[in-house]
């Protein structure tokens, strides 16, 4: 059963068209990755799902059409978006950032216990919970961004280049946690990555984008083992 269905998605930055009729679907409970070079349209796809950019086409989340909805109402359906650059509220504390992640939820008691759970997932954040988020290291800020997104109790999590600018060891850690979140909390994940090798280890499904179109889709194993794709699009 597909949770998110995207049909004929076209997106525009001013006059420039960035997506040319993208089509794909996400299966509930899986991790899917969008791969491709710089400027292929990966970030644009995520932004179009949350209606943060002008787009046409059809996006359906659990049978509900997202076209014309505001970003905040799409988020309220249970779609958490960790944007590029992480979108951390740098002048607020770590704890306030986590509170903000749950700002749309009415269940106050469970919010407190969810914050504790985030500190279990990311012990580093617990040590720094009264600190201004802007003073965290890059890795810690990325952990905070993921934790903030999880505070929504999302059904679907969109991640935009979570590995960007992080040391390899921290990236390993982070992807380990993402896998755990997917398995234990049953969160469906769509992750955009330039680090294809890493993303293909986490994901079950993969789509390769080139200049606003999907040029190849398959299971992570198929994409990984396809020599041509690897050489021409993934560069390793």
């Amino acid at each position, binding site marked *: 059963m597909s949770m998110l269905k995207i049909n004929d998605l076209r997106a525009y930055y001013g006059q420039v068209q960035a997506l040319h009729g993208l089509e794909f679907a996400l299966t509930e409970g899986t991790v899917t990755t969008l791969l491709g070079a710089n400027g292929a349209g990966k970030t644009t796809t995520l932004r179009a799902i*949350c209606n*943060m950019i002008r787009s046409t086409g059809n996006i359906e989340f659990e049978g509900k059409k997202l076209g014309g909805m*505001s*970003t*905040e109402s799409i*988020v*309220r359906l249970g779609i*958490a*978006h960790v*944007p590029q650059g992480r*979108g*951390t*509220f*740098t*002048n*607020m504390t770590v704890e*306030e950032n986590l*509170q*903000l*992640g749950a*700002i*749309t939820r009415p269940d106050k008691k469970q919010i407190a216990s969810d914050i504790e759970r985030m500190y279990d997932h990311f012990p580093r954040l617990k040590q720094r919970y009264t600190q*201004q988020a*802007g*003073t*965290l*290291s890059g890795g810690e800020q990325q952990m905070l961004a993921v934790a*903030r997104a999880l505070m*929504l109790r999302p059904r679907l999590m969109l991640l935009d280049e979570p590995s960007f600018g992080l040391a390899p060891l921290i990236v390993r850690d982070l992807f380990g946690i993402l896998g755990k979140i997917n398995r234990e909390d049953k969160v469906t994940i769509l992750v955009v990555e330039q680090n294809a090798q890493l993303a293909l280890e986490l994901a079950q499904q993969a789509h390769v984008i080139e200049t606003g179109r999907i040029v190849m889709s398959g299971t992570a194993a198929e994409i990984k083992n396809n020599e041509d794709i690897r050489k021409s699009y993934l560069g390793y």
Partner: protein
Amino acid sequence: MELFTNQVLAGIATGAIYACMALAVVMIYQAIDHLNFAQGEMAMFSTFIAYQLMQWGLSFWPAFILTLVISFIGGIVLERVLFKPLTNAPVLVHVAGFIALFAILNSVAGLTWDFTIKQFPSPFGSSGFLGSQLISTHQAGMVGVTLVLLALLYIFFRFTRVGLAMRAAASLPESARLVGINTSWMIALGWGMASAIGAIAGMLIAPVVFLEPNMMGGILLYGFAAAVLGGLTSPLGAVVGGFLVGIFENLVGTYIPGIGNELKLPIALALIIVVLVIKPSGLFGRKIVQRV
């Protein structure tokens, strides 16, 4: 020495007015990143509403509360009708909008209630405070109200979820939308709160300067000076700035020969310029700590 204490106390009393106005200025600045030039006229208009309610027979406090409610709703309506359509417009369009609002409110008030000055009652009376000759009960009441207001705002922004959401929407609108905050309503709420705070300032100051459509002209300038001095991003700064401007203005007027009462207003302007040159973020302005 007695002259000095006297002037400082009087400065604190007028400073409370500036602090109130500065709070309103900071509220809107936080929400939309612009200074609202019509803030003073909005406050004046609210005060006229209170005056009208009392003319119709309400006693002070019911009129006060009702005026706050009306001003709060009025602020939200102004934002929805006039400024929401301008969200993405350049800054000069906003300035034009503020000036238009200024002129409209000023003339409508003049048309409705005419330009003669009117008495406005003080809820605190005007006898000496604690038997003192230096400060009246009304002035003491003003200081008290300002401090209570500041404490309420602090609690609101620090400990409530709506306050947290408003801060988030003001600092990073896009991220705020991504956690599900309706940023456009947060701005409207900021307008409503600023309008209500302005109404409090107007109703506190009207007993001192008397009620008339131009009563806020000079005071808004002092309010701006206070907000700039304290730092435009900090409610606490606005209040401290208000008291400092009040004291400073009185001391300069008393001790520097040739300034007197007539030249007090340019002092506010000079202060704005000096602060902007020496410390643009003000005394309490946000210093963003960032690790790179």
